[in-house]
């Protein structure tokens, strides 16, 4: 390979500033989308196990529709497809108030909500049916049984696959660059444009994603141990 490495491009000029800006945007985008995804995931995951058929169908439609279309298409859908439905004045307003960021957040959140939903459903369905029946027998309503018994246990069970899904969400936030959101990957490309040093810029981006993901994985491993229910989820993996 005929290539001269020049790592100093990462800290000279504006590169450092751009990387930080990109990192901040990635975190902001991912955090908001994650909240949306978890909310939608819990709601539709719970509905998929609900004892009322129409609610189950609604949840199934949401999950199958959103998880089976590529994320890139959803990005274009929320950015190019939705705003024209608004009145002209509202359109101008959203276009002047970072429409691309919000379109990206919704696209990422709704898409991962559908995937999160399956994770949560698997958690709920791994709880023996007798627990639900026992809660009803103690006088709780269905809603209370979900809120006080089923979901608290299910959410503890799904920490590992939930972490997996969250890491995917963080990495998938890079797709938002296609609708001009200046997140981390966008900024690494920016550095490449200015310096023509693609490998250095991509390496910097890769290391930042790696460190971010490893930190989240570490935190989630602690959360998992902290909230484990003795007897139910006793054999947690030792700290590594």
């Amino acid at each position, binding site marked *: *390979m005929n290539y001269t490495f020049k790592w100093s491009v990462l800290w000279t000029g504006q590169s450092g500033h751009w990387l930080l800006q990109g990192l901040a945007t990635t975190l902001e985008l991912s955090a908001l989308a994650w909240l949306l995804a978890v909310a939608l995931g819990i709601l539709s995951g719970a509905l998929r196990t609900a004892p009322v058929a129409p609610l189950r169908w609604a949840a199934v439609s949401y999950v199958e529709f959103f998880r089976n279309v590529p994320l890139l298409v959803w990005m274009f859908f929320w950015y*190019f497809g939705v705003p024209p439905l608004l009145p002209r004045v509202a359109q101008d307003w959203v276009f002047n108030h970072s429409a691309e960021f919000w379109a990206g957040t919704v696209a990422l959140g709704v898409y991962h909500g559908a995937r999160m939903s399956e994770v949560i459903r698997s958690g709920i369905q791994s709880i023996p049916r007798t627990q639900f029946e026992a809660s009803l027998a103690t006088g709780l309503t269905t809603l209370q049984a979900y809120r006080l018994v089923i979901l608290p246990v299910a959410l503890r069970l799904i920490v590992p696959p939930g972490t997996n899904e969250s890491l995917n969400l963080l990495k998938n936030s890079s797709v938002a660059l296609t609708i*001009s959101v200046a997140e981390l990957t966008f900024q690494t*490309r920016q550095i*490449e*444009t200015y310096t*023509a040093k693609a490998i250095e810029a*991509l390496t910097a981006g890769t290391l930042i994603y790696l460190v971010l993901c490893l930190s989240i994985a570490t935190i989630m491993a602690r959360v998992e141990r902290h909230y484990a229910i003795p007897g139910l989820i006793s054999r947690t993996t030792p*700290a590594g």
Partner: protein
Amino acid sequence: MMRTLALVLALAVAVSAAPAAAQTDTLEKIKSSGVLVIGTRTGSPPFAYVNKNNEWVGFSIDLVEQLVKPSVEKAIGRSIKVEKKESTPPTRIPLLTSNAVDLIAGTMTDTPERRQSVDFSYTFFYTGAQFLVKKGSPIHGVNDIAGKRIASQQGSTNAKILREKYPQAQLREFPDQPAAFQALLQGQVDAYTNDGIQLAGLKVKAPHPDEWEVVGDFYSEEPYGMAMRKGDAKFKAAVDAGLKQGWESGKYFEIYDHWFGPKGELPYPMSPQVKAYLLKQIGK
């Protein structure tokens, strides 16, 4: 966990510190494979695009097929095929340095920064940045863009100029031309800036060409060149010889006429200054 991280970092350092392998001799590579791989565009009419009949064609592609290919064939003494690959502004230099393609022939501007990483052929086209707007738009040039939403192509030289010199504009950078143009069509942005010739090409292809206009003086200089791996003098000589031959024989102007002449895909007569600029490169 920390041990894993340390291991990964050590690996990364080891990989990056590995000595750069021997330089590629592109002519040798083409001679043994029989294929000249070019990186070009799919959505930049009339330089390189996929036309209505689903053929990948364009001015830049014709220059390679009709001028560069014969010259390379002459240099290595065998007939070759030209293979096309999609390359975008962010990917084209990595594609070259990783040997995935041998020559970038699309709409790449020859800049001093890029010259530190790649070599450029003679300039084969000369244009400058302008704006594509809806007819009647208050934007008439680069001085009217403060506060306006301007789309550009990420990795392009004009995006860089706007960012540095006109920070009051709200710049929206898209990875490719179709997405940026879609944003303009729908009103997500007020104007789309790119090299004037590409905007003229987009306008012709738009659903209602009359609704759009290209405005403003050139606020940047954009000489297009073909890019190749740095320091490969023999290959560069072959590419340049092809272009030179084209200017000397007049073949280049026939190809130009085919695409930009009165009956061409995009009528765009060559100004005397541009012609003089191109010919000056070969000492005429």
